[in-house]
């Protein structure tokens, strides 16, 4: 599904990612953990193609295709989805209208006609029920006046609507109370299949109680310094990140 080879990326001349190697296969869930400032969010932005970051070396390969010259919207059309840590507000644009536009742009890229309104409504109903989203919520302006939990739930709703091949959830657990976390995690688990993959970027182990990863990677100072199974997350929770940092130095 996704291969990252010796990825180096910098912003305004400052190198943030310093040689990342990662392989994610279909059906897998990977967790990327690490202390603040280790480069977790940069990694997700680079995979999504944010141009603010310069890829100075290495490759991001999706299903065999090098993404170097692929625009963010094309990456989206190819099945990459990023659940943002801080979703932006777009006043006056309803959640429904935004999703309708996104879905139809994706269809246009695949040479399909717009989705008929009837099918669109059905899809919206189905996915919003799955995520226990109030219908009234969908007619509100995108992320405007949303609580932290509502914003994250809305991100997962969009993921459900777009059915990506590779979903990157950037700190989706932050700002969620325990009920919202359960709903969001249930949603992600329902969307998981043998054909798609999920990368969870998180600071805490908490989310991993609900979405169980196949692999856990620790990112520190722009590099993956340790990889392991789900038990690594528990170890981190117990010991903190300091021992990893020390180990990395050695």
């Amino acid at each position, binding site marked *: 599904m996704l291969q990252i080879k010796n990825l180096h990326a910098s912003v305004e001349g400052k190198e943030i990612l310093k040689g990342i190697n990662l392989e994610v296969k279909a059906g897998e869930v990977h967790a990327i953990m690490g202390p603040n400032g280790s480069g977790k969010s940069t990694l997700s932005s680079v995979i999504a*193609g944010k141009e603010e970051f310069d890829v100075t070396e290495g490759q991001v390969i999706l299903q065999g295709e090098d993404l170097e010259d692929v625009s963010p919207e094309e990456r989206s059309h190819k099945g990459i989805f990023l659940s943002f840590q801080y979703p*932006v507000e777009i006043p006056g644009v309803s959640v429904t*209208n935004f999703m309708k536009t996104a879905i139809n*742009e994706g269809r246009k890229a695949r040479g399909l006609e717009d989705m008929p309104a009837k099918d669109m409504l059905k899809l919206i109903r189905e996915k919003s029920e799955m995520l226990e989203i109030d219908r009234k919520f969908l007619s509100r302006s995108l992320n405007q006046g949303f609580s932290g939990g509502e914003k994250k739930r809305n991100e997962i709703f*969009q993921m459900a609507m777009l059915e990506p091949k590779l979903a990157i959830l950037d700190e989706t657990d932050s700002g969620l109370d325990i009920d919202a976390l359960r709903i969001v995690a249930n949603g992600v688990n329902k969307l998981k299949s043998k054909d798609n993959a999920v990368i969870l970027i998180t600071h805490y182990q908490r989310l991993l109680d609900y979405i169980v990863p196949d692999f856990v990677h620790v990112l520190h100072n722009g590099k993956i310094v340790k990889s392991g199974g789900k038990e690594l997350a528990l170890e981190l929770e117990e010991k903190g990140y300091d021992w990893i940092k020390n180990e990395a130095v050695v």
Partner: protein
Amino acid sequence: MAYTEEELKKELETKEYEYGFYTDIESDTFPIGLNEDIVRAISKKKNEPEWMTDWRIEAYRVWEKMEEPEWANVHYTKPDFQAISYYSAPKKNDPNKSLDDVDPELLEMYKKLGISVDEQKKLQNVAVDIVVDSVSVATTFKKTLGEKGIIFMPISEAIQEHPELVKKYMGSIVPTTDNFYAALNSAVFTDGSFCYIPKGVRCPMELSTYFRINQAGTGQFERTLVIADEGSYVSYLEGCTAPSRDENQLHAAVVELIALDDAEIKYSTVQNWFPGNKEGKGGVYNFVTKRALCEKNAKVSWTQVETGSAVTWKYPSCILKGDNSIGEFYSIAVTNNYQQADTGTKMIHLGKNTRSTIISKGISAGKSQNSYRGLVQINSRADNARNFSQCDSLLMGNECGAHTFPYIEAKNKTAQIEHEATTSKIGEDQIFYCNQRGIPTEKAIALIVNGFSKEVLNKLPMEFAVEAQKLLEISLEGSVG
């Protein structure tokens, strides 16, 4: 590609005016320059009665002594009024023509504008009175309207057929002495629309007029008069596009609305005059005087989507004379490249319990300057008057400007006046968010701009809202297709 603001700006600058073409129609054009003889000649050409000629001459004499106003936040080379031809009519104009007889070149022009007469006819609910240059060439739905007693015709015909109405109301809201451009218009207007809705009649369709500047160097001076008699209702749509020209073209229209007791007028405008090229060369000067009078319990709503013109100077206003009357102003003004707009409204509260609402959305891109200028005046007799104003500005890039000049004059202690203003910017983060969901940058800008403008777009009649949305996209997107 994800866009940095730098690239975004570049893309906006490269957007060319889509309607820049020139139709070669033989015109009957007056020599350039303005004096009493020209004014008389226009009047004669129109076969006008003496009272009309006298009215024009009086206006001309007033204009001669007036100075061009300079208080607006716009900078431009003043037009040379002696270098303009004040009359131009398409030839082959047969008063007995049917739509099928219209000059094929004209029809081609409408097609380019997406407003072909055929298309309009199919819309069924829109009666169109099209002004090309200065003479109306096509009128539809006259019969349906006639059955209700509604008069909808070129103002030149109204002067002949309904002199009593024209005489009574023309210049009653915007007197010839009102301002420099209104005086000029009064002297030299060649055509425009006239509309009268009889007592208690609800006009069954949206009335629509398309104005167009065609002949090089010909200013266009329309005159519009809408009278809604007691208890009547009318929704009037006005849309403008113009072909691209190198020299500046002057457009100085006057619109007068009269809403008698319990009447309601909705007046919607989509304005897309040529804005000049991306270096700021050329473009239409749009100096318009629009004013409405509201009698008891009457209501007037001005809705405007302004995307064109190099320089705009326009303040559709309401005189709330009657008790309980209501004035509304909903505006979207878009400026790009070197465009300058100074637009807003005046709400003059004279009657008791009068209410006014102002919603203004300014969108600036490129190196443009976009100003809102509004006056809310509560007179001493206007007990319990209320006003709510909201002025929002959206900026794209770092070189444009947004300005707000609200003037409030309250002479009655019971007045309630609220004013809200916001300024925001389309950010890279918003664009990237949309991109990540598969929405390309152009579409993302359109989405964000439409969201920003929604409160005003919602006030437009359905068929016009679609056109307005299209215009917003054309004005602000990068090269489409």
